């Protein structure tokens, strides 16, 4: 009855159990992919590739084109990154390099709490608080001052509704900042103090330490943090559905209403009773899956190249 006699069997059991659990994840991935591919077949058979390049989304005639949703998914995510990454970087640098403990602690906790807020709350806040302010203050200004400019004007032209692609991008930026910040802060703290101290000892400024020591040391982690934020921005559903204006049209204006892949699915899936309509929505899901996969793959490749360059 001693523990030692019992152990080999237990070890094997534990191995098998954890192996089984890991295989289950793989199986799940394959099953989801299979479901998406099978669900996409009807619409891909009837429309072929025009599904991806047409901007007609018409449930009445049962013709579906995903181009606006795909493009607007990418645009909102890019807006979110352009705003979110520098802000997160700034906060993370401040928290790890500059802030005294009595500031860093509460701000750090606040960021973790922001990350825990459910996305629907951001959506509601965006719709009821942010959008009206954005519409009456910023959009009226852009309409009056930017819209009349010849070439870039149309990008900002839209009735001042406060709801649209740019609003969705900004809300997404606010949502991904806590994630990126928390992760960047964690990787920045892994930089050995001796490296930083040496740099300071050589007379480096704070910025030089961040730029030459911290960032190169944490390259992988920083890229990872940005990718995490991008992944979240691409897939975010409810908050975007609230503020993007839900219209399947390509518009030149980033102030105008649009629709992302996930917001279209959330809006239409329950009521899609024609076979092609629900198939079109599943195909949108597959497209998002592929886009996310490509983003991850590109990130991996990017990291590999960085590693090679730095000779690790």
């Amino acid at each position, binding site marked *: 009855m001693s523990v030692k006699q019992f152990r080999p069997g237990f070890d094997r059991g534990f191995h098998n159990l954890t192996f089984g659990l890991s295989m289950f994840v793989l199986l799940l991935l394959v099953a989801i992919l299979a479901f998406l591919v099978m669900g996409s077949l009807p619409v891909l058979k009837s429309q072929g590739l025009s599904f991806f390049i047409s901007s007609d989304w018409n*449930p009445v005639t049962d013709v579906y084109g995903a181009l606006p949703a795909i493009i607007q998914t990418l645009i909102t995510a890019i807006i979110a990154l352009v705003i979110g990454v520098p802000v997160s970087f700034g906060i993370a640098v401040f928290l790890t390099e500059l802030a005294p403990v009595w500031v860093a602690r509460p701000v750090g906790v606040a960021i973790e709490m922001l990350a825990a807020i459910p996305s629907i709350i951001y959506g509601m806040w965006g719709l009821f608080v942010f959008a009206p302010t954005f519409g009456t203050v910023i959009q009226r200004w852009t309409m009056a001052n930017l819209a009349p400019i010849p070439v870039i004007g149309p990008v900002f032209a839209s009735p001042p509704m406060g709801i649209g692609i740019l609003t969705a991008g900004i809300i997404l930026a606010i949502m991904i900042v806590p994630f990126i910040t928390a992760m960047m802060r964690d990787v920045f703290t892994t930089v050995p103090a001796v490296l930083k101290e040496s740099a300071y000892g050589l007379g480096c400024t704070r910025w030089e330490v961040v730029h030459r020591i911290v960032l190169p040391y944490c390259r992988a982690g920083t890229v990872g943090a940005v990718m995490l934020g991008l992944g979240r921005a691409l897939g975010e559903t409810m908050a975007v559905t609230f503020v993007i204006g839900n219209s399947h049209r390509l518009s030149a204006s980033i102030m105008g209403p649009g629709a992302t892949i996930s917001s279209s699915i959330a809006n239409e899936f329950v009521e899609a009773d024609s076979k092609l309509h629900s198939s079109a929505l599943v195909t949108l899901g597959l497209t998002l899956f592929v886009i996310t996969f490509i983003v991850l793959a590109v990130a991996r490749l990017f990291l590999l190249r960085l590693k090679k360059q730095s000779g690790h």
Partner: protein
Amino acid sequence: MLTTFKKSILGGAALLMAAGVFASAQATEISGAGATFPYPVYAKWAEAYEAKTGVKMNYQSIGSGGGIKQIKASTVDFGASDAPLTKEELDEAGLVQWPMIMGGVVPVVNIKGIKGGDVKLSGAVLADIYLGKITKWDDKAIADLNPDLKLPSEAISVVERSDGSGTTFNFTNYLAAVSPEWKDSIGVNKSVQWPVGVGGKGNEGVASYTKQIDGSIGYVEYAYALQNDLAYTQMKNKDGEFVSPTAASFAAAAANADWANAPGYYLILGNQPGAKSWPITAASFILVHKSQDNAKTAKDVLDFFDWSFKNGSDIADKLDYVSMPESVVDMVEKTWTADVKGSDGKKIW
């Protein structure tokens, strides 16, 4: 010691489970899913019915299309839809359909200084607004209908439903009836390819967008217009009269409905004749299977709707819905007797 302890836990659990089974066998529960448009009144009916009979009615307002899907998959005892199925669709799926309650879809506007009923619109003008052909509130077509009203030279922001919806079905059905261009270029469906505007999710989404956007126009179920204090418009009906949305004008439109000659009760109440008829009146429908595996549950479901037909009109009135007239109720219950059978072929009603 340990085994005795385990046994007693197991025994206790078994006892609890048995008690649970017993309790659920005692409390009757019926379930339905579908349209959001009649949800407020179904919920109130269910509450009153449970207080009276102890039978619990569970209704999930997941949307008309969802309701149709769920009843076809038999995951619920009844489905509810604002867009009726045609006779052929009913036969194909083995379903029985009947109208349960009526209400109105109401255009609502948000223009500074404009109160409910101030703005008068016609179907053709409404269609042109939603087609994007009329883009300013001071457009001549609108001014001609409102000679006494000074509307601002403000852009019209169109608000529509982004999700598939029976409300959209009835609204586009009306626009198609009054505008040939709408019929040809957009058509009628629970979701359509809107040429202009922003989409809100659900009646509440459209209501909140309309409330927030200056110069906007949207369409919601009447109760949502009241609850959100939105400015409704008057509409020119088929007889050329301007009417306001009220329970009375919905009822006037409903009174003209010829249910007796509508196979499978497929009838859409949009653009009905009559001087007092509200033009975008709509009925909401219930769907059950023709052949019922569980006769007792089927009877419970029909009992609930029978009670609601006969005792539910006060509740419906309070929520500004219109109950089905007695003649239609008689007709519907005859349909139950004729078409809803147990799997053994026996009558249920």
